């Protein structure tokens, strides 16, 4: 092995290397300028066509009115606080309920058979029903029974609906994570004398949860949007406030104001999810046992 003495780089910049570097630089410049020009041309044309189209003034007036935006925004923002409260509470409950359901679905204990069947049926049934129907069933149906001790609060039933609906999806996300942990991890844990419950808790679940964080966040982007559905129960949240403003003024800018608030939350969360997925791919692409 005498090659160890061979130089790792050309001494200085050789003519061959310099020519290649110059070529790469020229290529980068070219693709950058082509990209910039084509973007300007395309978006410029679209903007020109839209602004010069016959209905533009009317569209601008009823969707992009700055006055209406300013007038409606404070109310909508205060309503949005309700959305945030609803989905934060719902998220925490969903994470917990779904984890319990996923562990039950993955358990092998015969004692848990009825629970396992129940959890499977729950996931199958709930995933197949549109959230909006659940919302009407819980939000209008149950309070209409006038049962003793059952809360009447619309917000309570709104949160319940979201938890019931989303837990079914999130259970499956967790379950996929649990099943993705290789059997050899369980074998290693059992071989050390850990019980099957301990193996699940200390070895399988921590790995499973880490792996499903990106898809979980994805579901929470959807949950944040669906918190607007509860307006149908009359909960005074952002969308409901916007509806009220639109009904009074016949100007639709208020809906855009509400949409903007949702975007301010969901876009960063979606970007963060992408970042986590990328990081995970890099990790698993690296050295693994």
């Amino acid at each position: 092995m005498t090659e160890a003495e061979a130089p790792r780089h050309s001494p200085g910049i050789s003519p061959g290397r310099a020519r290649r570097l110059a070529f790469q630089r020229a290529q980068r410049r070219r693709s950058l300028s082509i990209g910039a020009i084509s973007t300007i041309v395309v978006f410029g044309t679209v903007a020109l066509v839209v602004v010069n189209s016959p209905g533009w003034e009317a569209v601008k007036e009823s969707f992009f009115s700055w006055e209406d935006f300013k007038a409606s925004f404070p109310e909508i923002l205060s309503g949005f606080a309700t959305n945030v409260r609803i989905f934060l509470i719902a998220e925490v409950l969903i994470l917990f309920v779904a984890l319990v359901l996923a562990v039950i679905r993955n358990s092998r204990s015969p004692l848990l058979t009825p629970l396992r069947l129940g959890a499977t049926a729950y996931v199958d049934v709930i995933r197949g029903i549109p959230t909006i129907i659940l919302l009407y069933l819980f939000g209008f149906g149950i309070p209409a029974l006038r049962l003793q001790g059952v809360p009447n609060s619309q917000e309570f039933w709104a949160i319940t609906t979201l938890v019931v609906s989303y837990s079914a999806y999130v259970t499956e996300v967790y379950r996929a994570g649990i099943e993705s942990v290789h059997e050899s991890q369980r074998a290693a844990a059992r071989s050390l004398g850990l019980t099957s419950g301990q193996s699940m808790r200390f070895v399988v679940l921590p790995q499973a949860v880490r792996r499903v964080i990106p898809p979980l966040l994805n579901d929470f982007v959807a949950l944040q949007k669906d918190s607007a559905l509860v307006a149908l129960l009359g909960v005074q949240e952002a969308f409901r406030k916007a509806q009220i403003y639109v009904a009074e003024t016949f100007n639709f800018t208020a809906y855009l104001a509400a949409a903007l608030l949702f975007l301010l939350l969901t876009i960063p969360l979606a970007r963060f999810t992408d970042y986590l997925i990328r990081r995970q791919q890099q990790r698993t692409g690296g050295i693994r046992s």
Partner: protein
Amino acid sequence: MSAPLLEVRGIWKDFGDLTVLADISLELSTHEVMAVVGPSGSGKSTLLRCINLLEPVDDGEILLNGVDIADPDFDADSVRRQIGIVFQSFNLFPHLSVLDNITLAPSRVLKMSVEEAQITAQKLLVRFDLADKRDEYPDRLSGGQQQRVAIIRALAMSPSLMLFDEPTSALDPELVGEVLDVIRTLAGEGMTMIVVSHELAFARDVAHRVLFMDEGRVVEQGPPDQVLVSPVTERAQRFLSLMTEAR
């Protein structure tokens, strides 16, 4: 000679239509090292997994200190903590640091205090030259280091028997030595062990007895100089000449 620590009597194991272990019997005394050799698919790994009760046997007895642990009514968890196993693919817990990999079972199964478990772990890490890796995560270690941590993890439970399932097969050639050295050290200290390995020179050097398996059966059994140098059966002779040719 005292009663054997481990006595396997006529165990059978099927996977579907395939019989993986057919009437296997063996005896192992305390401080004894047994090497199990044979072509791949001969049931060597399954034998270890059965002894550790990771796989239930279909028939036969496995006596540990005279108690039949293969009895379906027996508490498997209590046996597994007495028998350590080291896997071909290490199977360290990737979400835990080296130290936490080692202390998990002592603290959760043996109910050691955290400090006590950490002291035990630290001693083992120092002894096997891995003290500087205690806070690393497994994927930052070389294969050889990972396998040594896996051995320490099993040793931390103070097992009365250690099983090694092809501990060096997944390693780059230059890393094999450091793992074999650890096993050799343990043998020197009188640890009772069963080692499944393709490292025949190592087996000859360390083992007191060698078991040659083929197609789920024990083909030949005896001292290393007999089984690994001048085997009686034609099957063992053929395997041996293939293995030496490959060198």
